[in-house]
């Protein structure tokens, strides 16, 4: 496995495959860049470490500026406060459900559009494709889009967060490319057996494109999880806010009462950091497992449909 990986490195291949000993200059070069990139990686995660360490640090340590990227003086009061404020756990559950619903709706719409458009015998395929692609370049703008959503009566409903973005043409094109790679003679065989197109799609095409479907579903899920623009535009009751908007409100309005100040070990910074950490947590937990799908996803996008 390491040999294949190394053979992809290119320039220094002949050094490793030769005597097996690098010369001193090559060793220094590799060492330098190794250290450099470890430092870059550490710098990249310092902001996250900082937030986590502030959230666990004691008031005195924070006020005296002793906390850098490691907690000083253990303290979990901020978490108690953050979890109490704004029904944090309830919002988290709601956001997860909303994210799953959005991913499901988006995926169904994407597949329903991409499967027929991937077929080569569809006469109107080219025209419908153009019809879709044009929307990627003609953006009506914030106000007309808002007026449209309002005309449909979606303002201040959960549908405003699900329907206006129910399908991404860009992702649909990626899905179509994946369907195109399937040999259509498979479909022919199924049709002769009397399968409907829906069954062909569901039982032949979808199972053959699971990696792409998983990747796109994750893309949709993350963009719903992180999206705030539509909530700011279309929603003004905080009961429909996701974690992101709840966090935004908490960051803007966190206050420590005099009583809390005297009995606990927290500062507003503390509570902000704790709520940021709590909001990041789901993403930090799933990231190592799903990261490779996203890396693949970038590559999928690079293939022109």
């Amino acid at each position, binding site marked *: 496995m390491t040999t294949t*990986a*190394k*053979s*992809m*490195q*290119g320039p*220094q291949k002949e050094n490793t495959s030769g005597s097996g000993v690098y010369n001193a200059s090559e060793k220094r070069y*590799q060492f330098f*860049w*190794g250290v450099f*990139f470890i430092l*870059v*990686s550490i710098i*990249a*995660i310092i*902001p996250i470490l900082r*937030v986590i360490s502030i959230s666990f640090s004691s008031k005195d340590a924070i006020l005296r500026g002793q906390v*850098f*990227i490691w907690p000083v003086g253990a303290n979990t009061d901020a978490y108690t406060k953050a979890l109490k404020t704004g029904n944090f756990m309830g919002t988290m559950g709601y956001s997860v459900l909303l994210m799953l619903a959005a991913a499901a709706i988006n995926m169904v719409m994407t597949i329903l*559009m991409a*499967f027929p458009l991937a*077929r*080569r*015998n*569809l*006469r109107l395929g080219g025209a419908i494709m153009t019809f879709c692609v044009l*929307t990627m*370049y*003609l953006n*009506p*703008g*914030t*106000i*007309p889009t808002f*007026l*449209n959503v309002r005309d449909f009566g979606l303002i201040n409903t959960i549908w405003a967060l699900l329907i*206006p973005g*129910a*399908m991404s043409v860009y992702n649909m094109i990626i899905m179509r490319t994946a369907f195109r790679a399937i040999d259509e003679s498979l479909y022919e065989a199924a*049709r002769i057996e009397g399968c409907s197109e*829906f069954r062909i799609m569901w039982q032949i095409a979808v199972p053959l494109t699971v990696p792409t479907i998983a990747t796109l579903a994750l893309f949709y899920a993350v963009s719903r999880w*992180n*999206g*705030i*623009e539509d909530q*700011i*535009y279309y929603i003004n009751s905080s009961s429909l806010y996701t974690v*992101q*908007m709840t*966090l935004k409100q908490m*960051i803007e309005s966190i206050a420590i009462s005099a009583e809390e100040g005297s009995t606990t070990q927290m500062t507003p910074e503390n509570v*902000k*950091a704790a709520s*940021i950490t709590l909001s990041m947590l789901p*993403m*930090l937990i799933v990231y190592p497992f799903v990261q490779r799908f*996203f*890396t693949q996803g*970038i590559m999928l996008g690079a293939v*022109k449909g």
Partner: protein
Amino acid sequence: MTTKKPSELRPDRKGWFKPYIAGTWQLYLMMLIPIVYIICFKYKPMIGIVMAFKKYTPFGGRSMWEMDWVGFQWFEEAFRDTLFWKSLANTLILNLGDLFFGFPFPIILAIFLNELRSNKVRKTTQLALYLPNFLSWVIISGITSQIFASSGLMNNIINALGGETVPFLSNTAWWRFVYWFMGIWQSAGYSLIIYLAALMSNDPSLSEAAYIDGATRMQRIWHVTVPQIMPTISTLLIMQVGKVVSISFDRPFMMRNALVTDAAQVISTFVYDKGLKGGRFDYAAAVGLFQSVVGIVLILIANQGSKKMGQEGII
């Protein structure tokens, strides 16, 4: 009813229509919901563009069509509005800064990461740099204040070293720097992966040949590696240049604070403040339309440019 193979369908013969529909109606049926969606939520809003030429009256139940035409009044107002020009200028400044600082950074990282033989370090670096891409701008703005506020990490370090507190978030020049910095932090990992993939597909024999011919490391990188990823670089560059007047909403909206409005008010937040918050739908629609039109023209120019340079167009 027998369905026919596509090869049996002859467009020029009479009577092709019936078997064709018999064989494909289900496919058209599948697309029905997505097509209705695209019409309702991608094309129908375009009708609302007329709002830019109308006088918006919020109450009285009048439809958009019954409101009075005002021609180009809102555009004229926008061109006289110093706040509009400021927003436009800020949009350009912030985007050009992203281009200047944010664009070369992942390229340089990718080139040297590709030089590295240790797979572990490569994987770790990718993992660490790509992570911020999955955080929302709400979280990133929260993190920003933890790092750059007067009691944040940067000032902790500066104070510990005996320096004066730097007003990163309240001074407009510093704020821009923070905006760009967090932009790089958020997006570098994504571009890094694109460039690494481009580097992976490079032909290693070219580099080996250069090595045997006695080229130094820097010469190999500059004359062999970089030219091979040039198509990727120029495509991404042109895409970003084409988008120089359009700016996302989340990032400036979440990064701004009351002290730096002068630098942070951009077109997208201006449209939001005037239109959705201030209720001036007509004026905000005109500003948005102006931005969209200029944006499309720039994208078309960029696309022509990329074709002229011998690259595949982006449209």
